[in-house]
């Protein structure tokens, strides 16, 4: 059985890997490789954000009664990340290398800062407050 922090953290790492591979490919102007990796990254990220917003955050809010606190900030940051992903999509389609690298640097720093708050605070708190954590994760694993 996997715990919430373990599983969700491993997904962050998986996203990081695709992200870096896409970035290196763009730096080498290997556009087909870049598009493939980028697609994998944005699919993984979209799934991950949805799992948080639609399952984990509501459960956490219910369990703790904190609706306006940390999860709200996390949701806003997800919106910011989605906006950047959109910009990166465009840059990739236009094969605009410098634009892409500038944006990817930005997304990287933003995403890492966000992940750190989740990994160090939010996920451990979820594990503490959600009794059905492992069930939730096994439902994620099957999807």
């Amino acid at each position, binding site marked *: 059985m996997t715990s919430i922090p373990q599983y969700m953290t491993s997904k962050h790492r998986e996203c*990081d*890997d695709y*992200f*870096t591979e896409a*970035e*290196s490919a763009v*730096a080498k102007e290997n556009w087909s490789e870049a598009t493939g990796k980028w697609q994998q990254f944005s699919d993984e990220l979209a799934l991950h954000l949805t799992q948080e917003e639609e399952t984990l955050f509501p459960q956490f809010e219910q369990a*703790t009664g*904190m609706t306006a*606190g*940390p999860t709200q*900030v*996390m949701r*806003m940051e997800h*919106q*910011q990340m989605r*906006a950047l992903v959109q*910009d990166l999509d465009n840059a990739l389609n236009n094969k605009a290398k*410098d*634009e892409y*690298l*500038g*944006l990817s*640097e*930005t997304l*990287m*720093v*933003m995403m*890492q*800062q966000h*992940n*750190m*708050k989740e*990994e*160090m*605070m939010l996920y*451990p*708190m979820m594990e*503490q407050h959600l009794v059905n954590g492992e069930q939730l994760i096994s439902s994620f694993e099957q999807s």
Partner: protein
Amino acid sequence: MNISGLSFNALPPIDLPFRYFLTAPLFVIFCGIYLLSYGDSLWLSRWTTGMLTLTHAFTLGFISMVMMGALLQLLPVIGGVGIKKPRFIATTCHMLHCVGTCSLLLAFNAPTLWWLYLAIFCLTLSFLIYIVALIQVLIKKLSQGDSVIGFRLAVFSLMVVVLLGLGLLSRNLDLTPFGLSKLTLLADKHFTNIHAVWGIAGWGSLLIIAVSFQVIPMFHVAPSFPTRIKKTMTWFVMLFLISYIFFPVWAMPLLFVVHAIFAFSLLSVLARRKRRIIDTTIRYWQFAAIALLLSNAIYFFPESWLMLTNDASIFHNLAHKKELILAAIIIFGYLVSVIQGMLLKILPFLSYTHLQQRCLMDFSAMQYIPNMHEFFTKRQASILFYLHCTSSVLLLAVILENQFYYFFAVLLIIEFLYLFFLSLKTVLLYFQVSNKISLSSKG
């Protein structure tokens, strides 16, 4: 874990860290001008007025200044909460810190006591307010990371450094009315050494070590530092710092060794990073690690071997100037390098996030936001790095051959003017875009 009070609402107003980052290079620039006017006699020993001025302009004016500004931003991310009343605290502390540092530098050089009083007053108050504000955050057990421990130890070291610094300054005052005779306070070299070692290896290095455990794996998609290192390194540094008070002779080599271990693991983690894109901040970290290893090599190299050579040139000089060389490599090659590298990341990132948050209500304004490379380019970042490499080499040259001071001072001024220019450019672009966003949301 205590979850009440956890807000994540992270960012303190951006002009607060900007203030710290913009004033920091100015101290080094003035320092360069001072070097030019002082002449080559400054470099004769650790104890010249000039050398005291130089080290404090760097450590208080640049290193502590940037670290205090960066902590405002880092605490919410690492600890989950920021300091209370950030605007009041940062504004007051920043002003007092600037005035206090300037007065201290003047007090070293001018015989009047007034500068000394002013320095003691301002620095005591600014550090007191800042440390109390930090402690209120750091005593909460919010975070899971090992970094928080390092932060706590670093802040503890800062307290020790400040107290010792005040004690050392008070030797110049007549405290007999308070029942303290000058003799009891007439500390010897050892207290000055403790002040310096705790400042460099405690406040400076502990904070850098703690931050590196977090940011290196994050920003460069590198593996984590080995758990054993993350859990024990900062404690070992603290243990050896405390031992240094009582047994300086055997604690010093241990402090060097523990930093060599840090340098090796830093290099190894960086070498295994997945993000291979060229990044000047990485080169700054590597440069800093190499500086630490070099300082170790020089520290452990037997002095008698240097004296064996007959010709009395560079080797004798090296043995003679060992203390200064080590201080230069550690302060300028290690601490200042890491801080510049971090600034290159923090400045554009802070600007970007703040701008982006202003667009949350008005997504159409997102188009105005520059990406991180538009604040300054990769090329500009690497120019700063090469300037820093060159001035590091010149610093060593000037310690060995004092007459080179002119070149070093000029290069130092150029390097930090350039850093100032990059910071200013970022800040100006930030405000320009910020205005555009305001206009667009009104229109």
